[in-house]
């Protein structure tokens, strides 16, 4: 596999960016689930 820095014509998958973005989205997604099921629902319905 050639070094993309020395060979700009060879596009590669930005794995580091994917890991950072994936971690950020995972934290948000599981945080949302935790707030929804552990805080919002136990506080009961309103209407």
């Amino acid at each position, binding site marked *: 596999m050639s070094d993309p820095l020395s060979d700009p014509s060879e*596009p590669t998958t930005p794995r580091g960016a994917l890991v950072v973005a994936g971690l950020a989205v995972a934290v948000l997604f599981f945080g949302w689930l935790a707030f929804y099921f552990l805080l919002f629902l136990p506080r009961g319905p309103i209407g």
Partner: protein
Amino acid sequence: MAESLPHPSDDPNERTENRWLMTMLGLLAVMMAVVVATSLTHALHPPSNVEVIDPLSLHLAGEFVESNLGAALEPDGSVTVRMLAQQYSFVPHCVTVPADTPVKFRLTSADVVHGFLLIDTNVNSMVVPGFISEVRTRFARPGDNAMPCHEFCGLGHAGMWAHVIVVPKDQFPSLSPRQRLRCAAH
């Protein structure tokens, strides 16, 4: 022109972006499904009461005269709390309600737009002059729940708090209407 561009699937970056897009759409679909499923099973919906009232005659007649404010036990066992919001207090300042019982809050404003929320519940509503805000909830356990005004209503807004004191269910019927307005714990 178009023939000279590479096919999207030939570009690894484009493939990655497409996969990322699909993943995000999938997560959004999961969140929407969770909201819809729990809304149906828990009967979740926003309060949608639209009821008008004349703010100029609240103190003269009708539901919000002073003698009718506070917590009232209904024939079906539920409790209705009636309060007036005004610069800069809720009237009455304290109300007592039973735990594990359906409680209906009915509030209106005598002057400007106010708001209220109840700690430990999902109750969070504006109180607009000319309208009655009605929100139903149920308190899981006894305690002293703060009820602040959360809509900036003037210079004294920060001091506009009420207290909802939740007592055990069996203790509530023995309290007189006057005792239900006490701020001290029962």
